[in-house]
C-alpha cells in the first residue's frame, strides 16, 4: 500500500483502513479543532513548568509557583485566624455585660461557644448538653456551683476537683458507709432524703432519719436539704438528681459517694473561648441572674 488510494466519490485519500468493505477517509481535522489542540499542548507545557505536576516518589516537582493546596489552606486559615483575633481580643477584655450589649459580639460569642462546646464538652455532657447520670445536665436550673454567668465562667475555667488547678471547685462528701454510720442509719437517712422531694419513701423510716440527717448532713446540705453552692452541696429537695433519685441510688451515694471531676479549661482554651463557652451555657435556658443586675 505505498500508493495512496483516492476515494472516487469524495476525491479524498483513504487511510488504507478497511472494515467490511467500508473505507476510512483521510479527512484533515477541522482547523479550529487542531488549533485548540495545539493550544492545549502549549498550556500543558506551561502548566508543567509553573505548577507542581510530575509525581515523584515522595512528593511532586514543585513548579515555579511553589503552590500547593496544603499551602493555600494554611494561608486561608491564617487569614481567618487573623480576622478572628481582633474579635476574640475584644471578647477577652470586655466584661460579660458589655459583650451582651453588643449584639454582633454576643451572636459571635454564642455561636463560637456552641462550636467549642461540641468539641470539648459533648464527651461528658452530651451533644444537647442534657448530661447523663454523674454528668450534670446544663439545660436545667439545678446548679451545684451556681448558674449565673460568673459562676459558670469560674467552673469552666478552673474545673471541678481538679488536681492541677489551685482554684478548682472542690467539695467532698464523707464516706458514710465506711464506719461513720451503720446500715440501719443509712437506710433511715435515705428515706428521709427521699421524703425531702416527696419521692417514694417510708414515713416511719424517714422520721428516724431526720435526726441523723441534721447531725451528719445539714452542715453542708442545710437543715431543709436545699444544699449550698458555696460548698458545692447539691439541693436534695428538688426533683433533679445527679446520681439518680431512687432509694438504692440515694443510699449508695450516702454510703460510698461518687465525686465527679471536670478538667480546668482556663489554660487550654484561654480567656476569650472560656467566655464564649460561658455565654453559650448560660443561654441554654438555665442561666441565672440577669447580667444587668
Amino acid at each position, binding site marked *: 500500500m505505498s500508493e495512496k488510494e483516492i476515494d472516487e466519490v469524495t476525491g479524498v485519500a483513504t487511510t488504507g483502513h478497511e472494515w467490511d468493505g467500508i473505507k476510512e477517509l483521510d479527512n484533515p481535522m477541522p482547523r479550529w479543532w487542531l488549533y485548540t489542540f495545539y493550544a492545549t499542548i502549549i498550556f500543558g507545557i506551561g502548566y508543567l513548568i509553573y505548577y507542581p505536576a510530575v509525581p515523584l516518589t515522595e512528593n511532586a516537582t514543585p513548579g515555579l509557583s511553589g503552590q500547593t493546596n496544603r499551602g493555600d489552606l494554611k494561608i486561608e486559615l491564617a487569614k481567618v485566624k487573623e480576622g478572628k483575633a481582633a474579635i476574640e481580643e475584644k471578647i477577652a477584655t470586655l466584661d460579660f455585660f458589655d459583650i451582651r450589649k453588643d449584639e454582633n459580639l*454576643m451572636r459571635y460569642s454564642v455561636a463560637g461557644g456552641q462550636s467549642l462546646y461540641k468539641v470539648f464538652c459533648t464527651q461528658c455532657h452530651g451533644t444537647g448538653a442534657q448530661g447523663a447520670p454523674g454528668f450534670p445536665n446544663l439545660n*436545667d*436550673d439545678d446548679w451545684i456551683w451556681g448558674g449565673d454567668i460568673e459562676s459558670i465562667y469560674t467552673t469552666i475555667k478552673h474545673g471541678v476537683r481538679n488536681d492541677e488547678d489551685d482554684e478548682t471547685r472542690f467539695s467532698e462528701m464523707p464516706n458514710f458507709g465506711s464506719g461513720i454510720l451503720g446500715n440501719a442509719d443509712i437506710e433511715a437517712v435515705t428515706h428521709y432524703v427521699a421524703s425531702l422531694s416527696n419521692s417514694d419513701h417510708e414515713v416511719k423510716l424517714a422520721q428516724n432519719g431526720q435526726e441523723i440527717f441534721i447531725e451528719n448532713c445539714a452542715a453542708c446540705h442545710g437543715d431543709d436539704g436545699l444544699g449550698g453552692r458555696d460548698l458545692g452541696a447539691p439541693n436534695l429537695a428538688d426533683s*433533679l438528681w445527679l446520681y439518680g433519685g431512687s432509694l438504692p441510688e440515694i443510699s449508695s451515694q450516702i454510703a460510698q459517694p461518687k465525686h465527679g471531676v471536670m478538667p480546668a479549661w482556663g489554660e487550654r482554651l484561654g480567656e476569650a473561648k472560656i467566655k464564649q463557652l460561658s455565654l453559650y451555657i448560660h443561654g441554654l*435556658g438555665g442561666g441565672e441572674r440577669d447580667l444587668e443586675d
Partner: protein
Amino acid sequence: MSNNLKASNFLHGELEHLDVEPVNSKENRALYEARKKIHPKRVKGTFRKFKWLVMLITLGIYYLTPWLRWNRGEFAPDQAVLVDLANRRFYFFFIEVWPQEFFYIAGLLIMAGIGLFLVTSTVGRAWCGYTCPQTVWVDLYLVVERFFEGDRNQRIKLDDAPLSLSKIAKRGMKHTVWLFIGLATGGAWIFYFADAPTLFFEVITGQAHYVAYATLGILTATTYIFGGLMREQVCTYMCPWPRIQGAMLDEHSLIVTYNDWRGEGRSRHRKKMLSQGETVGDCVDCNACVAVCPMGIDIRDGEQLECITCALCIDACNNVMDKLGLERGLISYSTLNDYNQNMMLSGSAIIEKEGDKVWDKSKINPKNIRSQAGRLVDNIKHTRFSSFMRPRTFIYGFVYLAIGFSMLTILVLRDRLDVRAQNDRNPLFVKLSNGAIRNGYELKISNMKTEPRRFHVAIEDLGMASVKLAGETSNRGRSFFVNVNANEAKTFNFFITKHRDLIFDEKRDFTLVVSEVGGKEHAFEKAQFHAPKESVLEK
C-alpha cells in the same frame, strides 16, 4: 466564489437586476463547506422602519434600565431593576423577590413560553425577525459596517481588494466600533447585578471585582463574535428556537411568502414579453429580495428554516413593484392557507416530486389571477387579521392572561412577613428542679419589608405557660417583643415552661402568633410542646 461575490449589474429600464446568489439556499449549500459571506444590501420601506423602531426600543430598554432609580427608602437599594446576588434579592420597581419566591420567575418563564406559542402561532417567527437580541445586534453591527465600508457592492469590492492602507483603516475602524459596542453590551449586563453608577466608576478606575471584568470580557467577545463575525450562522446552526418555532407554525400562521401564483413565470424581460403578447408573472427576477436577505436565502424557494421573517425582502420587492406600477405584495406576509387557495386559483396543482407533495409551478397561469384590465381578480385571498381568530389563539391568550393575572394577584396579596418555628430536638424537653417542663424553640422571622419592624410574639392554645428568650434569666408571661431589621431573616431562640401540674399530653399542638407592632400584618405558626411520659402519668 467570485461568481456570487462579483456584482455585474445591468440596467433594465430603470430597474437594477442584481447578480446575487442565495448562498444558503438548499441547492447551494453543501455539507462540509466553509461559510460563504453574505453582504446584505440596504433597503428602505415600511418593515425596515418598523425594525429601526423595534431596535431603538429594545436597545434602549437594555442599555438604560440599570440606570433607572426607584426610591425604596434608606434600607434598600434604589436601583429600579437589580439582581442582588450577594444578598439574594431581586428588585423590579415596586416588586421585591426573595429566594423562596423564585416561583414568580418560573411563572414568568412559563408565560414567556406561552407567549412564544401565542406569537408564533399567529404572526410566525416575529421574535426571530424583530426582537431577538441576535437579530437586533446583527442589525446594529451592519449599520456600523455599512457606515465604514459602504453598501453591498462596495463591501464586496473591498473584500476582493488587495490589502491597502485604506482597507486596513476601514476594517480597523469597523472592528474597533464593533468591539466598543460589544463592550457597552457586556457593560450594560453587569450593571443589572450591582449599583450601576458605583460599578461604572469602579470598572473604569480598575477597582471592580474580577468577576465583573470577566463577565464584561466574555460578553464583549460573544457580542463581537456573534454579531460581527458569525451572524446568520448563530440562527441556522446554534439556535434551537427556529426548530421549536417551526414546530408551532400552522397553516394559519403568518409567514413571509413569495406569492408564486402571481410571480411565476419569472421574466427579466417582462415588458418585451408582454408587448409580444406572452403571458408572464409579476416577478422580474431582479434578485432584490435575495440581495437584501441577511440569511442568504432566496425567499422564492418557499418557506425555509433559515428565514427569520425579518420581512426586508417584502420591502425590497414592494419597492420594485412600485417602480413597475404593479400591486405591492408579490412577497408578503401570508398564511399557508391563503397561499394554497391562491395557488389553486392560479391553475397550479399539487404533484408528487421526490416523495414530497409540491405545487406544480409550471401550471401557473397569470391570466387566472389578472383580469383583462390588468388588475388582480377579486377572489384572491388576502391575509387579514381575522385569520388570527381561531381557538388556538384564544386558548393561548387565555392561558397567558390567566397565569399573568393569578401571579399578579398572588404578588399583590403576598405576605411580607414569614415565620418559621422549630422545636429543639436535642434535648426535646428539659425537666426543671421544681418538676416543670421546659421546651426550646428556634423562631425565624423574615421581615420582607424595606423598613425595620417590631413584632409581638404570643403563644396561643397552650394554657398556662411562660416564655423567655434565650439569654434571659426570668420568665415573662406568654408573649415577648422582638425587633427585625429591614429585609432581614432573623433567628431567635426562646423557651416555654409549663408547670408540672398543667401537663396533660406528651405532645401538645399550639400556635405562635406573630403580629406587627403598629401594623396589620400577622402570621400564625404551628408548634408542639413535648413532655416526658412520666410527667404525664403522674396525674
